[in-house]
């Protein structure tokens, strides 16, 4: 629609009167403009900066946020303005779009921030004006590449369960993934170097013994060189076949440049093997040996710089083509001129125009061998013009190629830098995540303490130590809490989890008597490793020698929401299995109710006041002082055991 020129619509309609006398049929009825309100000023308050514009300006683009009724959601009744909590700088260009019909991309803006603003206001980026569109697209492409690189790196990390073939392929493509791959990488590199050096040394004349002529080393030590060559070709063949086997798409692999180089590098050897007996084609065989030099290209797998160079040349193909074409033109022109200029001179070397090509090329590239020189004055004049123009013609496409190379090279540098910083980045991310998880556990603990303190009505100094958390946090924690209740599992931190896993793994050994903890494993948190046993254990013997794993607090941030503090009482061995069962049931029931036990016993590094028996829980605690049952003085523990001397004090946060 002609929204850009909406202001001229009344004019176009008025000019339609010019058709009326010509028309033969009656005209349709014009639509009535019912909303006869006057054009009014709208105030748009964007984070405090007030923009004002006419309503009709905004109505020009009815499929955007500001042009449609969607903006009513942002209307503030008291101040009679539309309030948007967005970036006022970016809003400027958006409002200008309504005014002028052209969307501009401000260069200092971050591309993703700008994109977000556009999406928020319902404007598609494709309508960015021509003046800014290129810049926008370039920045967007850069950003995408960066994201893709990140994704690829993540993909590298994530794949853990590949089959053998895929592992092999990955090892070939990224040698730094495993040690074996690295070894293979260096070995092949070494053999490529050996092969190339052998080829070179083969032709060096070794010292002559009894012959008059110096023989090249290759003919003197034929067997040795043959053996080395065979060994190298063996290695290369094996490598090629392995790559072929491991390639995800064999057809595509066979078509790729590197595989063709591989084939060309090893083929001469095999052809030579087949053809050694045939004397006629030995000349051709010798020529084939030239292809052995292609082995040096195999180094490009090992060197990134070579790869970049190759890629640059490929991407600058048009510039190179232009260079070639202009050079050819210049060569032909100057060769012709030189030929005719030198025609008069008697013993000139410029016998024909093609013969002059050599002179022109040598002159234009400023080589100047001196085997062909003009002798006439005209020839010398044109020769000098030729050399001057040669410098210019060659210098022209070079900056383009150089800038391409620089761009690609810097891209690669950036990728390498990011890979190097990846480790630090990942650590940062992990710390951030774990700190938020810890915050939840801490908050849960604090919340429970708060509740308990409220319940018991004590008003001691402990309350001061509890960090007050914001409403947002408390609601978030409540949400996580609900999840815990839903799944009947709890969140714990990493160390706890690992210990639990370790313990349950240990408990598969029949030598240990089962710990009570494993019986209560439904209450213990997300122990994903196997042995979660709900059923009571056949072994009725008592509290095991090994401590409850939950006691192993180490490190500063051990927030444990469920502790099973087993106080070992060497005297009481009478707890029968049934009793244990009872307790299990009891505890389960208690867990589901939220009535009785509401606190967590925490082990904090510093404040001892929070723990009821403050001393008891620091450090690795193996045994506890047995609490007399029903001790009322400790406000934060309520023992669940009733009768047995073995006090299984289970304090859970549930």
């Amino acid at each position, binding site marked *: 629609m*002609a929204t*850009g*020129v909406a*202001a*001229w*619509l*009344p*004019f*176009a*309609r*008025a*000019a*339609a*009167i*010019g*058709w*009326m*006398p*010509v*028309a*033969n*049929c*009656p*005209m349709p*009825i*014009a639509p*009535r*403009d019912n909303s006869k309100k*006057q*054009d009014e000023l709208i105030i748009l308050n964007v984070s405090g900066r007030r923009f004002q514009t*006419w309503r009709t300006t905004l109505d020009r683009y009815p499929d955007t946020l500001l042009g449609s009724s969607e903006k009513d959601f942002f209307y503030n009744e008291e101040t009679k303005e539309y309030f948007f909590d967005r970036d006022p700088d970016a809003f400027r260009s958006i409002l200008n779009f309504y*005014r*002028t019909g052209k969307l501009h991309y401000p260069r200092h803006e971050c591309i993703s921030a700008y994109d977000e603003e556009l999406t928020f206001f319902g404007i598609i980026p494709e309508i960015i004006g021509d003046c800014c569109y290129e810049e926008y697209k370039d920045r967007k492409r850069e950003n995408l590449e960066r994201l893709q690189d990140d994704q690829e790196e993540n993909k590298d990390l994530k794949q853990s369960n590949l089959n053998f073939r895929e592992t092999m392929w990955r090892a070939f493509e990224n040698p730094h993934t495993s040690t074996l791959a690295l070894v293979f990488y260096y070995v092949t590199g070494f053999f490529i170097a050996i092969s190339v050096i052998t080829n070179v040394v083969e032709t060096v004349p070794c010292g002559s013994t009894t012959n008059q002529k110096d023989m090249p080393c290759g003919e003197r030590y034929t067997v040795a060189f043959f053996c080395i060559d065979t060994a190298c070709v063996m290695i290369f063949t094996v490598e090629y076949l392995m790559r072929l086997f491991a390639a995800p798409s064999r057809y595509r692999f066979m078509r790729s440049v590197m595989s063709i180089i591989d084939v060309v590098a090893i083929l001469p050897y095999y052809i030579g093997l087949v053809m050694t007996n045939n004397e006629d084609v030995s000349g051709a065989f010798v020529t084939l040996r030239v292809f052995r030099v292609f082995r040096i290209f195999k180094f490009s797998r090992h060197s990134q710089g070579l790869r970049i160079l190759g890629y640059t040349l490929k991407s600058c193909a048009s510039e190179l083509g232009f260079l070639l074409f202009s050079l050819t033109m210049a060569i032909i022109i100057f060769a012709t001129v030189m030929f005719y200029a030198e025609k*008069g001179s008697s013993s000139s070397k410029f016998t024909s125009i093609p013969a002059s090509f050599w002179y022109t090329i040598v002159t234009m590239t400023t080589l100047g061998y001196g085997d062909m020189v003009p002798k*006439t*004055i*005209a020839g010398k*004049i044109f020769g000098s013009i030729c050399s001057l123009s040669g410098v210019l013609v060659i210098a022209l496409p070079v900056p383009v190629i150089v800038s391409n190379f620089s761009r690609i090279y810097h891209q690669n540098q950036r990728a390498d830098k990011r890979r190097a910083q990846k480790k630090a980045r990942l650590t940062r991310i992990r710390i951030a995540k774990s700190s938020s998880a810890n915050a939840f556990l801490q908050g849960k603990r604090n919340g429970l303490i708060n509740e308990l303190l409220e319940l018991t009505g004590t008003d001691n100094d402990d309350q001061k130590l509890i960090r007050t958390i914001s409403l947002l946090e408390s609601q978030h924690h409540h949400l996580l809490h609900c999840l815990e209740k839903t799944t009947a599992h709890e969140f714990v931190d990493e160390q706890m989890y690992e210990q639990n896993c370790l313990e349950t793994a240990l408990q598969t050994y029949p030598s240990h008597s089962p710990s009570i903890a494993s019986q209560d494993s439904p209450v213990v948190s997300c122990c994903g490793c196997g042995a979660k046993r709900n059923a009571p254990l056949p072994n009725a013997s008592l509290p095991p020698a090994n401590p409850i794993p939950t006691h192993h607090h180490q490190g500063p941030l051990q927030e444990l929401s469920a502790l099973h503090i087993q106080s070992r009482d060497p005297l009481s061995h009478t707890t029968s299995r049934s009793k244990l069962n009872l307790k299990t049931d009891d505890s389960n029931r208690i867990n589901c109710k939220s009535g009785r036990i509401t606190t967590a016993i925490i082990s904090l590094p510093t404040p001892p006041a929070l723990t009821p028996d403050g001393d008891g829980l620091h450090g690795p605690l193996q045994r506890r002082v047995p609490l007399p049952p029903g001790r009322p003085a400790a406000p934060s523990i309520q023992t669940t055991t009733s009768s047995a001397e073995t006090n299984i004090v289970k304090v859970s946060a549930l």
Partner: protein
Amino acid sequence: MLSAIWETEGLQTVGIVVLVFASIKLLHILGLISFSEDSVEDELELSAVRHRPEGLEQLEAQTRFSRKELQILYRGFKNECPSGVVNEDTFKDIYAQFFPQGDASTYAHFLFNAFDTDHNGSVSFEDFVMGLSILLRGTVQEKLIWAFNLYDINKDGYITKEEMLDIMKAIYDMMGKCTYPVLKEETPRQHVEVFFQKMDKNKDGVVTIDEFIDCCQNDENIMRSMHLFENVL
């Protein structure tokens, strides 16, 4: 002998040098190459003329628009043409945006001429507003006169068949190709015949302004459609 060789060679050289310079001079004379950079800038036209309209009160007096309406009109006008005048190309662009399917440039040309009352090649805001005043707030008589002026391309007071044919073709061009029923070659011509049959009372092949006005006033359809766009602004 050496001097002989030098003579021939020297002559050769001189001849070649003279030839080269003559060819360069020839190219320069032909204008294909220029040695100074200033000539490029001479070709640039002076940047667009800035135009400021007459005051609001004067326009209010001259046209039948209220102050507010003039304000709205001017804001729209200046938004599209910040320099204050519309030249024919801009006019064609703007008008073409309303008729994306066809080619509105010919009709826009005629329209431009109708608005450009002082024929200076550009439509200023005053021209614009005067024309709109007639079209939207004028009497039927004035509107018909305006339409007559539009059809009368050479402004000689008579509408000939050729002029009418041009106008008709321009109007049909705006329809574009994809119409139903399909536009045929002779459709404009037929339409012109119908028009002339209606308008040309004395069958002299031209339509004068009186014939035109009389005929239109007797035609109900036309009369009704004249009032169609009255509430546009």
